[in-house]
Structure formats: C-alpha cells, structure tokens
C-alpha cells in the first residue's frame, strides 16, 4: 500500500502524543504510589525483625502478627529497600533496609516461613 509523506507525519505526531499521554499517566501513577507510601510510612511502626547473611544472600525475618506474604509491598529505591506490611487488622509496619552492595535487587523474594515473613535478597 502506498504511504504518503503527509500521512507519515500525522502518524508520528499521533504516536508522540500518545507516548506523552502515557508518560503523564505513569508520572501521576508514580505520584499516587509515592503519596500512599509516605502516608503509610508516617502511620507505620517498625516490626520486630532479625537478619543474617550467608553465601547466597541477605535474609530478613520479619515478625508481623496477622500478616502473610500477600500483605507485603516491596519498593526498591535509591540505595534502600522499603518493606511495607499492612496486616489483616489494618496495622501498618515498615522496614527500611539499606541495600547491601552485593545485592541483586531484581531477584528479591518474599515468603512466609512458619509465622514469619522472610524477605530474601540474593547476592548478584
């Protein structure tokens, strides 16, 4: 099918406009998440936790009553991993973890072992 110069121009302009709209949407979504995160942090308490390191990675055991792994939200930020937990009683807990140097933050896993939330940060 023949394509004329004018049509190409219009298509590109429309695509750019669409990308701009998507960026705007993403930006406002990030703002909303950030707002929620900060308000969660303000109302939250630090949970009981312990941590250890082995050859595989860094392991955080967090004790939040009435919570399981689906109640955990994890945010990887600049040099910091933020763990937010809202338990079944709507109590909020937050734990800031300084990202270890050797951590591979793309493979963080969360699971519940017995009554504890286990955040596992593998080494890269």
């Amino acid at each position, binding site marked *: 099918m023949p394509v004329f110069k004018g049509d190409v121009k219009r298509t590109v302009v429309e695509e750019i406009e669409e990308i701009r709209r998507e960026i705007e949407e993403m930006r406002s979504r990030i703002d909303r998440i950030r707002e929620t995160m900060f308000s969660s942090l303000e109302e939250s308490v630090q949970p*009981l*936790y*312990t941590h*250890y390191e082995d050859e595989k990675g860094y392991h955080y*055991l967090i*004790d939040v*009553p*009435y919570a399981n792994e689906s109640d955990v939200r994890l945010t990887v930020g600049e040099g910091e991993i933020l763990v937010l937990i809202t338990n079944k009683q709507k109590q909020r807990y937050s734990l800031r973890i300084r990202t270890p140097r050797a951590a591979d933050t793309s493979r963080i896993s969360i699971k519940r*072992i*017995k*009554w*504890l939330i*286990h955040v596992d940060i593998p080494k890269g």
Partner: protein
Amino acid sequence: MKVTKFLDLELLELEEPNLRRPSYMIVGIPDAGLVGEIATEYLINSLGMREFAEVSYPNSPYLVQVINGVAKSPIRAFYSSNVIALNSWSALNPDLAFQVSGLVMEIARKYAVDTVISITGVPVPNRLELDRPSAFWISSGEDLAEEMSKVEEIRKFGDGYIVGPYAKILLDSKRTGIRNLVITVESLLDLPDPEAAIVAIEFIGKYIGVKVDTSKLEREAENIRSRIRELMEQTKRQMPSFGRGTTTYA
C-alpha cells in the same frame, strides 16, 4: 501485706501459700525467643494460679504494669496447689536480673520448694527448618541429672555455657541444696518463639504432673506475639549485656 527486703528489692506478699509436696517453682525471665516468659505466663493462666506476691525495686527506674486499671509490679509470683511461678513481664537489666535470681532462691527456701524449674531458649541457626524444636535439660546436681537421664522426651544439654540470671540460680541452688532444673528449647534469638514455648510447657506439664492444653496458645499465637512485641524489643536491648547476646549456648 508482708514486706521482705532482699538487696535492693522488696517482696510484697499478699498471702503465704501452703504448697503440697513435691513442690516446684517455675521461673520465667525474658531472654532468647521469650520462651520462658511465654511458657510461664501460659502456665499461670492455664493452671488458674493465684497471685500472691509482687517484686518491687524502688531504687531502679520505675515501670508499672497496669492490669484492669490496677498498677502492679511487672515481676509477680503466683501459686497453685504445689507450684509457684515467678514471671517477669519486663526485661531485666543485668543488675536487676542478678538480684531477682537471688530472690528466686529466697522464695524457694521460704516455701520449701523441692525443685526450681527455669525455662529458656537456646538459639539455633536452623530454627525455622525444625518441625518441632528439641528440649534439653541442665541440672544443678548429680541426683537430678540421674533422674532426668531416664526421661525419654528430653535430652541432656551436654557441654556448653549458660550466662545471666539462670546461671546464678543454678549456682545458688548448689549452695542452698534446692534442686534446679533448666529446661532450654531450641528457639529463635531475638524474635518471640511461641512454638518453642509450647515444647517447654508440654514437658513441664508432664514433669510436675498437671495436664496443660497448649491448643489455646497455638490458636492465640498471633495475638500473643502482637502483645509482647515491646517486651521483645526491651529484651533485645538487654540481652547483649549478659554476654554473647544469649543466655544458653552450646
């Protein structure tokens, strides 16, 4: 109320229990996994024990526990037919722990207790991989050790160390002739471990000859952990001052 002074402490007794023989005194001082505290509190409640004394420490920073609007010392003693239980709902600094463990032997001597039973946790790195943590015994003397070696469900601790208040009770018991049995269960170090407490309760129930249903503790474990969060925080802060951050280690 009868007030007895012991070092900087005061034992405030509302009544003087008359215990049947053989008699036992269970001691719960917050340390590894809060095993002793959780187990002793549960035994107090499930055996319907009656409060008879409070331990006051006027020279130390004040902390008062409020129960149903009534102020109480966080260290209190209870009794039932042949058992006394002394439990601390507050972490003890080394000086206070030293004095409280001395007072334990004074109470045991006063009420002619046959065996003092201390409950604690021994932190193990693979704790979360264990379906059921193991319990171990430590004895103050040869006769009790021989008696315990015949018990199947609990093993001898073997070689290791015990530091902090339970060590003092062990040594004092040698001096006073009152038997001391330490029950230590594999546990977490700095997180509450109700599962380890259940193991301790089940053994102690059999040892002292009472039936204790631990299903309520299993059901209410989430609530208990929620309630004792602050106690665990306090205990974590105090534990390093006893030595290596734990009271029993192999």
